[in-house]
């Protein structure tokens, strides 16, 4: 469903993503791990067609984001990292707007918006203006936006960031549930989340994949039974000098 082939992104002299390749198949939830600045968000932005890659390609349901960006975008639901929203709109208005842009109209639009509101537990704030909402609700509004068109591929950039423990649990359950018939790629800093929601995980560091496997395999690979130990041993800390 998601095929990433030799994806590279160069910002000036800095190579943010370095020849990255991986695939996510239907029914798979891939956890995307890595320290800050490892290139996770950049990779996601390239797959969703926001950044053009310097080289390489990403295919979503067999459609290249470079050659047919509009068709590819219709297959993807995307939650950007900071969960950006139009603050002058109501939750309902915002979701209707996103549905219209996606070409959903009439009763189908009403149903899609209602379903997304229900899935993300937004019923109580649906008619509120977005700028009056708490962070958790804003995050879920943006998540709802990504589910409107029932996409085959979901790309979620830190979907549990800034949520309280209850909300985190709900979102993880949601990802697990949706992952049964979609391909999901989600990035996180929270290593427990990998065990809780992922069927597979990759760890990236400085734009390259440094570990790849099911949570059980990764824990085994760590030798100590802890994902944190593996994470610390394979990634570069920003306090240490990178090897030349």
């Amino acid at each position, binding site marked *: 469903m998601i095929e990433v082939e030799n994806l590279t992104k160069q910002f000036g002299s800095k190579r943010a993503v370095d020849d990255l390749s991986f695939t996510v198949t239907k029914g798979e939830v891939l956890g995307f791990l890595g320290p800050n600045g490892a290139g996770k968000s950049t990779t996601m*932005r390239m797959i*969703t*067609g*926001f*950044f*053009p890659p310097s080289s390489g390609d990403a295919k979503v349901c067999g459609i290249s984001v470079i050659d047919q960006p*509009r*068709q590819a*975008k*219709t297959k*993807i639901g*995307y939650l*950007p990292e*900071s969960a*950006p*929203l*139009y*603050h*002058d*709109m109501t939750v309902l*208005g915002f979701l209707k*707007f*996103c549905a*219209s*842009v*996606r*070409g959903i109209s009439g009763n189908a639009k009403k149903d899609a918006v209602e379903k997304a509101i229900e899935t993300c537990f937004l019923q109580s704030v649906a008619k509120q203006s977005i700028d009056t909402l708490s962070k958790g609700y804003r995050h879920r509004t*943006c998540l709802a*936006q990504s589910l409107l068109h029932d996409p085959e591929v979901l790309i979620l950039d830190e979907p549990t960031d800034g949520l309280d423990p209850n909300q985190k649990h709900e979102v993880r359950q949601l990802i697990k549930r949706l992952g049964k018939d979609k391909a999901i790629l989600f990035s996180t800093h929270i290593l427990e989340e990998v065990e809780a929601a992922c069927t597979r995980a990759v760890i990236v560091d400085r734009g390259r994949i440094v570990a790849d496997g099911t949570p059980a395999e990764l824990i085994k690979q760590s030798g100590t039974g802890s994902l944190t130990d593996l994470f610390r041993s394979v990634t570069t800390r920003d306090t240490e000098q990178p090897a030349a």
Partner: protein
Amino acid sequence: MSALTVYKRELSSYFAQPTAYAVIVIFLLLSMGLTFSFGQFMRIGDASLEWSFFFWHPWIYMLLAPAVGMKLWSDEQRTGTIELLGTLPLSTWSAILGKYLAAASVWLVALALTFPIVLTVNHLGNPDNGAILSGYIGSFLVCCTFLAITMLVSACTRDQVVCLIVSVAACVTMVLCGYDDFTRELGKIASPAIVEGVVSIGVWDHFRSLNRGLLRLQDAVWFASFIFVSLLGTSAILSSKRS
């Protein structure tokens, strides 16, 4: 189709916030105030709106049009919603057109609300209403040109204040270049070729002929090309910012 969706969202955003109301009210106060004070609408006793009314429009637009257009892309970049727009199945041109037309519509409403002056002049005398209509078209085109320039600037920066200052400066330049007093002074120190070059970027030549009721092809081409090039530049800047 998606341009229409963006258009509706932008327009309702203007009217959901005080921006549109503030701009419309100030425009009406200034245009009417200037018409009846410095424009000497009553004293001239001329049943036309060329000097008393339309003359002031470029001066007002050069300050107020950027205020309407400054948020168009700056705000999207500051809040990150540009990432949302960029990953929806929506072409950059649909977004640009939707936003641009929404800002232009705010001004269309403002201009439409000056209708009492048309009624007044028709009540007092026997004006050439064709010329008044063409004056309105000229006025709206000047405004659209300034909006297009503001949109171009707003694509360059995420800071609305910077966008406002830079686009006001650009619009002021376009109003001053080609204004008679300014070109006369310039003619004293510069060669005719330079003066001609400077005048050609000014709005007055094209604005005035429309004001007199002349619909010239060259004016249409001038306005259309200024607007088109600005929108093209906006699209180029937005795509280059991502790569």
